[in-house]
């Protein structure tokens, strides 16, 4: 009996391809609702465009067009002036999951797994059955290539439906066009908001956006200078997990353990390598020949060994001046403050925090503070509640900084708060990459950034509110005088209007003194 069942089961058991897996688990990547699917598709395409431009040091010019076909079906076009993609790679990049160069490197970048854009292609094909159209051109002297692609989900291989050479009046760039099932909404989690925030975090990019209601927005660049390029670094031994460690050991080109440690990790020199190997009682072996126990021993020894923190000059911040300029362009506030913190390290990964606040002006008075979160210059629109940035904001006492706050709630006041985390590896809570995980080192840095901005904001608010109150109070004296005169007249029996007139004279004569007066509650005159 048992044997038969086992045989039956064996027939059903087979490896499922990554494509099949993600078909069934698309929520893991953020494609769980029609609204979010629309956003994710735009987001993946725009992220790719920005990364491609930066890599080739091109000032990005990106066009995003959303067209409504029916209420639940949309056509999305994203076009950039990036370096383009060579013909042979186009199908793999767009129609093969987990294809990409970023996965094995540690470098501050938007995408990490190479899942994004091909996931959109898969989603398009699943919901509409349509193929994705790509045009790409790498140089004015080369032709543009046009592809229509789908994914062969069983084998995770591109299915090429059309492959042509076409004319395209652009020097270089890539254009992607997809049709998906989706839903267009306005508000905090909309595509409109995503584009707006992306422009804020990427002040060197020009983004033109046409939404389904045919409203056109052009976000002009604030600067012509491209940001400092993020440098690729090797993993730090304290930031790696055992699984990846084993994989690195397997993939290494070194033939000795010492060589492997020195070449494939940052901050390990010959001395450290020898010390680690001695401690782990492993000498000179071929990394591929270690057994499980030895591997784990080596891994654990590495974790225990003191190793210099990784280099932190590999990060590319937005820059506090630019962040502030971006805010000024998008918001009519009364006061702006921004800072970029020095880099720090969590679990062997360098990161840095930037923060900016816009206060007053046209920002609504009595609502809660609006929090805008960025990770590696990508806006985070979902899962605000589960994000370390949000936790840090709630855990900060905003009252001394002039905002209202009850308990550990979101502070209230006319303010927009922007927090950006840049890192070679942003620890997200899930694959949909919408919330930063709660590492104490990260939360500490965010809070320090918030406090630094907060103190400056508080200073401004106190100074200005005080000035405003002073002006109002000056006017009050005039109204206080008749009241005081009447009471003194009642007490003394002297004529009321005489007292009133005399008081008015005193006010007129000393008005400047009175307003400049210090505001000690009571002046002590003598002991």
């Amino acid at each position, binding site marked *: 009996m048992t044997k038969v069942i086992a045989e039956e089961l064996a027939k059903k058991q087979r490896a499922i391809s990554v494509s099949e897996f993600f078909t069934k688990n698309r929520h893991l990547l953020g494609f769980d609702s029609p609204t979010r699917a629309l956003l994710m598709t735009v987001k993946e395409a725009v992220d790719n465009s920005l990364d491609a431009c930066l890599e080739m040091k091109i000032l990005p010019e990106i066009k995003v067009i959303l067209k409504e076909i029916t209420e639940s079906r949309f056509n999305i076009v994203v076009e950039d002036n990036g370096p383009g993609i060579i013909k042979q790679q186009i199908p793999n990049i767009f129609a093969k999951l987990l294809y990409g160069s970023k996965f094995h490197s540690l470098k501050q970048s938007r995408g990490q797994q190479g899942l994004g854009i091909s996931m959109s292609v898969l989603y398009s094909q699943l919901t509409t059955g349509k193929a994705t159209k790509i045009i790409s051109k790498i140089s004015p002297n080369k032709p543009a290539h046009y592809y229509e692609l789908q994914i062969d989900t069983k084998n995770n291989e591109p299915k090429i439906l059309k492959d042509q050479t076409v004319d395209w009046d652009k020097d270089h760039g890539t254009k992607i066009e997809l049709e998906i099932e989706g839903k267009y909404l306005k508000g905090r989690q909309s595509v409109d908001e995503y584009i707006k925030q992306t422009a804020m975090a990427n002040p060197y990019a020009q983004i033109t956006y046409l939404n389904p209601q045919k409203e056109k927005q052009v976000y002009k660049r604030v600067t012509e200078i491209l940001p400092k390029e993020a440098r690729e670094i090797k993993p730090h031994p304290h930031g790696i997990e055992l699984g990846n460690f084993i994989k690195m050991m397997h993939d290494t080109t070194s033939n000795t353990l010492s060589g492997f440690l020195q070449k494939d990790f940052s901050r390990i020199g010959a001395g450290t390598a020898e010390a680690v190997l001695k401690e782990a009682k492993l000498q000179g072996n071929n990394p591929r020949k270690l057994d499980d126990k030895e591997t784990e021993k080596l891994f654990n020894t590495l974790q225990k060994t003191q190793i210099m923190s990784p280099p932190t000059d590999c990060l590319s911040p937005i820059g506090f001046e630019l962040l502030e300029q971006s805010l000024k362009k998008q918001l009519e506030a009364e006061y702006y403050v921004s800072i970029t913190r020095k880099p720090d390290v969590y679990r062997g990964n360098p990161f840095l925090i930037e923060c900016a606040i816009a206060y007053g002006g046209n920002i609504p008075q009595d609502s809660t503070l609006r929090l805008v979160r960025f990770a590696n210059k990508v806006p985070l629109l979902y899962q605000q509640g589960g994000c370390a940035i949000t936790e840090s904001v709630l855990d900060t006492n905003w009252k001394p900084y002039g905002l209202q706050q009850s308990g550990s709630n979101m502070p209230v006041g006319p303010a927009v708060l922007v927090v950006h985390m840049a890192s070679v590896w942003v620890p997200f809570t899930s694959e949909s990459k919408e919330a930063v995980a709660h590492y104490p080192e990260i939360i500490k840095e965010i809070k320090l950034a918030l406090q630094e901005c907060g103190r400056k904001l508080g200073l401004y608010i106190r100074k200005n509110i005080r000035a405003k109150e002073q002006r109002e109070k000056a006017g009050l004296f005039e109204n206080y005088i008749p009241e005081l005169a009447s009471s003194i007249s009642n007490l003394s029996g002297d004529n009321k209007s005489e007292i009133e007139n005399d008081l008015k004279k*005193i*006010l007129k004569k000393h008005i400047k003194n009175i307003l400049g007066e210090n505001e000690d509650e009571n002046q002590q005159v003598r002991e």
Partner: protein
Amino acid sequence: MKTNKSENNLKELGKDLSKQIKKGKDPSLTFTLRGLTNIVFDKKTKSLSLGNKKLMRTFFNLAHAKKFLQTIEIASVSKNLIKEEKHASLRDAFYQIKRTIPNTKVNIVDEQPESDKAIEDLEVITGLSREQLNFNANKNGSVAGRVVISDKGDTIDWSKLGSGGWSIPSNVEDIKFKKVNAKYILYMEKAAVWERLHEDKFWEKQNCIIISSQGQTTRGIRRLLQRLSEEYKLPIYILTDFDAWGFYIYSVIKYGSIALAHLGSKMTIPTVKFLGITANDIEHYGLNKHLIKLNDKDIARMKQIMDYEWFKDNKDWQEQFKLMKKMGAKAEIQALSSRGISFISEEYLPEKIKKKDFLD
């Protein structure tokens, strides 16, 4: 006579301000600073009084103007009351000056504590007590015992007032004692305990006077205690919960309070003794099961009180604080009820008083 003095003081205040204004000077009030930084403990009279630090409050000052106006408004209300021979409660006084100043959004007062404070300021400025300014606090507290008094022409017998006893008015200056037949006065923090003792006819059996308040001791009660203590030399025993707040009630009656330091020894009764509940009572009467754990506030308050000048060097009291800390707990008077509803009146109090088991 008294009325005249009050009226004159207020008129002087008005004349003084009027003169300053005529001379083109920013009108100012100078008075003794009330507050922690200007409190002196007089070891001779054993009472808190104000030091010599003075404050000046001027009208043409952004921070002072409203308070200045409040004080003068209150003075004006007081003058009218005295003239009409009427009295107003603190609440009345608040409503008399509460109004919006024309052309502004500012109210002269928004909350009663503001007018209460203005009255206290006026007391310091004029050297007159609240009662002399014709302001009365709310009635608070009950008294029973073999005492006959006359109050505004009415004769009142404290032993014949049913279950409620006589309500103590805020001003007891004008009452006259016609007959006082008691060996001592028992003052307690809680009305519920008073009711118990009254129902058990404790004052009759023990030949004493029982007085209660609801929480803090009001001025009227303190003055009544003081008059009975001075005029009839009656010893006073205090019964409160075993906690920092209870100890403070005792401390206020004996040594005075920071808020009323300007009244100095007029309010303090250095001869009062603390009857209970003490740490030893808890042990002796087996109240251990009815302890309540100290919270952070209790501990903080205890630490403050421990360091009061008059407790600091008092071995008996320091012992109490030490034991409370050790127990990590407090107890209410009502814990005694665990031994029987009338245990307090039939055993606890008679025994304590007989043994003269007091703290000083």
